[in-house]
């Protein structure tokens, strides 16, 4: 049986066959005329109070016809619709929306009384702002779209829901501004999402892989944010947003590398300060990637890179180290990565102990034992701190740092130069939805430089980024 049958028993039996799980409950009752009803709902994700108040109570007093339209008008739940296909009705039950079946009708009624357990809206830990909004996305797609709708109160904001994941049936919201977002990007995103054939989508990062033009790329291809204000700002610039149920991280496309050097706070502080911090982030990132590599290259191949006094200090501290400079640096970097990994996943009360172990035991003792030199630890610490100046690029930069280190240890400064060349060519060649990753620097878009590393005053940012190709260029008069 594929569709709802007029015989309630047969339909209910078919539904039960589709939903054999123990947490799917079945409730039977009759209305004022004695007509039998059966309601299917998922135990933990349905608001039972609301279901009783808005569906069961009005129907128990109902004395009218068995037609779906009249019954739908009689229940007081605001979100009601009908469906014939049993498969779709079962999917609704699994999503938390109760399904009502009754005798003498070949349609089922879906009542939107879903109540998914959700975390309260709070400040995201990865995107803390001193000035500006502090709200962050949560794991509930409906709540997240509400946070977006709250900020963009326009009919032009389109939100289309798709279902992704064969078994997870994850609701994915595609958000865009009609007339501002590039239609080809909107269509491309929807097409790619519809083409995904995967069992389970636990997080939006799964979708990011499928939405990328280069899914195997080392460099991220999709923008991410946990903050609705940033998400809305990006949509308003002409991008397409994707929110997946179960993930507090929303995706934005097309992505440009420069986005990760901009923070939401840049728009709430004076332009000069924002420009300074953006350059600071770039500097920190370059230091994070290149400092360990140049330190190694200078020791092994090019001593002139260091001032003489510094060179003598370093020479003094490394003379008894048993490891080669590159191996030493690799070891210290590895320890840093392990500490980093462990500190994220360890319970908070163990974290303090871990810091002591990391800083004192591994740092101090390793130096006094002569395993590693003090400059190596300073360099790695500096690099580690620099990496977190641009938190959204940590995965890419830590790999790049390691690659630079290996090349510096084997080929020296020339290797660093060539690898940088490779990275540059790769970055400028990469495009996503027709938008170059390295824009607005390559290809150079002069007008977009006003909000790239430089940050002009808000009054000067009259147009949307040209690189995105929005059909509605002007954003303020």
């Amino acid at each position: 049986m594929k569709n709802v049958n007029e015989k309630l028993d047969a339909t209910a039996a078919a539904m039960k066959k589709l939903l054999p799980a123990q947490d799917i409950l079945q409730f039977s009752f009759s209305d004022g005329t004695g007509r039998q009803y059966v309601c299917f709902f998922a135990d933990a994700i349905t608001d039972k109070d609301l279901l009783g108040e808005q569906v069961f109570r009005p129907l128990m007093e109902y004395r009218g016809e068995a037609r779906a339209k009249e019954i739908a008008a009689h229940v007081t739940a605001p979100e009601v619709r009908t469906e014939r296909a049993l498969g779709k009705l079962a999917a609704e039950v699994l999503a938390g929306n109760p399904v009502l079946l009754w005798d003498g009708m070949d349609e089922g009624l879906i009542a939107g009384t879903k109540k998914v357990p959700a975390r309260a809206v709070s400040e995201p830990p990865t995107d803390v702002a001193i000035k500006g909004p502090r709200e962050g996305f949560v794991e509930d797609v409906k709540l997240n779209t509400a946070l977006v709708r709250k900020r963009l109160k326009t009919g032009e904001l389109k939100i289309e829901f798709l279902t992704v994941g064969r078994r997870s049936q994850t609701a994915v919201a595609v958000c865009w501004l009609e007339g501002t977002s590039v239609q080809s990007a909107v269509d491309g995103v929807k097409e790619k999402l519809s083409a995904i054939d995967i069992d389970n989508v636990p997080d939006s990062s799964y979708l990011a892989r499928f939405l990328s033009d280069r899914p195997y790329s080392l460099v991220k291809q999709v923008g991410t944010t946990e903050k609705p204000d940033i998400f809305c700002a990006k949509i308003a610039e002409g991008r397409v947003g994707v929110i997946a149920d179960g993930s507090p991280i929303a995706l934005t496309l097309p992505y440009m590398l420069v986005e990760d050097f901009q923070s939401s706070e840049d728009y709430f502080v004076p332009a000069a300060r924002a420009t300074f911090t953006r350059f600071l982030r770039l500097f920190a990132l370059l230091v994070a990637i290149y400092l360990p590599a140049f330190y190694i290259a200078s020791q092994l191949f090019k001593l002139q890179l260091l001032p003489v006094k510094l060179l003598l200090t370093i020479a003094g501290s490394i003379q008894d180290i048993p490891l080669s400079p590159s191996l030493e640096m690799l070891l210290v970097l590895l320890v840093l990565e392990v500490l980093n990994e462990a500190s994220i996943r360890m319970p908070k009360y163990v974290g303090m102990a871990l810091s002591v172990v990391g800083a004192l035991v591994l740092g101090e003792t390793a130096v006094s034992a002569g395993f590693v030199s003090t400059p190596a630890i300073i360099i790695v610490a500096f690099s580690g701190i620099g990496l977190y100046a641009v938190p959204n690029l940590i995965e890419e930069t830590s790999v790049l740092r390691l690659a630079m280190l290996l090349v510096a240890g084997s080929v020296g400064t020339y290797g660093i130069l060539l690898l940088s060349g490779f990275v540059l060519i790769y970055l400028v060649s990469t495009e996503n939805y027709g938008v170059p990753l390295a824009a607005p620097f390559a290809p150079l878009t002069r007008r977009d430089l006003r909000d790239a590393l430089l940050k002009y005053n808000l009054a000067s940012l009259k147009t949307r980024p040209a690189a995105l190709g929005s059909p509605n260029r002007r954003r303020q008069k």
Partner: protein
Amino acid sequence: MKLSARQICFFLAAVAPAGKLVLMPSQLVAQTANDLLLPVALQILAQSALVFAVLLLARNGRTVYGMLSDMVGGFFAKAACVLFAAFLLFAAFVPLVEQKILVQSIFYDTLPSYVAFAPFFLFAAYLCAKPLASLGRVWDMLAPLFLVGILGVLLLSVGNADFGALLPVGAAGAGGFGRGVAYTAGWFFDAALLLPLVGKFPYRKGLAWKGALCYLGGGILLLFFLAVYYGIFAEIAVTQLFAFAHMSKYFSGITAMGRIDYLFIFAIAFVMAFYTAMPVQAAVDALTDAFGHRRVLAPTLSTAFNAALLALMLAFNFVPSATVSAITQRAFWIFPVFAAGAPLLLLALSPVLNKRRERHAR
């Protein structure tokens, strides 16, 4: 269009001069002593005029191969492209040797293995296989980087330059001047590098002038560099093979802060690495225009050419200076034949082409 007019201008103004800073200054001083500016000025003027001519060719939006096949038919056009690609590969040799000597001298204090330079060919193969759009975007990034690098070096060095060393003008005589012009021909073939790009960027009104002026601007920067170089080293300039990497180290702040000038030197060397790969890139472009199938042919040719050049570099490993001298002092005449002859011939024949096209259109 794969490239933009701006990217062409950026290449001419701030990427092309990067290829003339390594061995050319000292070779020039060997012939002309303090008169080194005059031959280079003449070369820059000539190249600016040739750039103007090449950019004029771009007006009809056709590639050079397209133009040639209209004029002389597909077979001869293909033969001409192969010949031109052979010239470009020949021209690639000087920048490659320069790059190799430079790498071994400024990137290592220790004695590097003679294959330390080999990874360059991997980089070049990757670059040459990329579409032209990527190359244009690379120029967008390299142009400001080169300007920062060269201006940084000049700023740190200019205080130590005695421009009086450039006087009296004309001491080298006509012979010295002539040799200076002839022996620097091997470094001035930028107009030829542009030829395979014709038809791949939109021609806007005045682009030929803009391109020529950009090249002239880059040339003026090069002349200033040469003046500072000779002003610092004077009589011993002839022995300073990689002047741009040495001239800023006499800046007084270096003692206290270390070689901060390396930041600028590395910036220039970075741009130079891209410029060094440019002739091979142009050769690949010329051949893919002629034979099509760019998707397959470009990576294949790029790999093959770079592998062949690596083998040649290893073969000539112990005689790099002699190789450069042979090319620039004996075979110098090849450069003007192709770099000047090809664009001028095409420009002269373009009215014939236009007439033929009009006839076909009718």
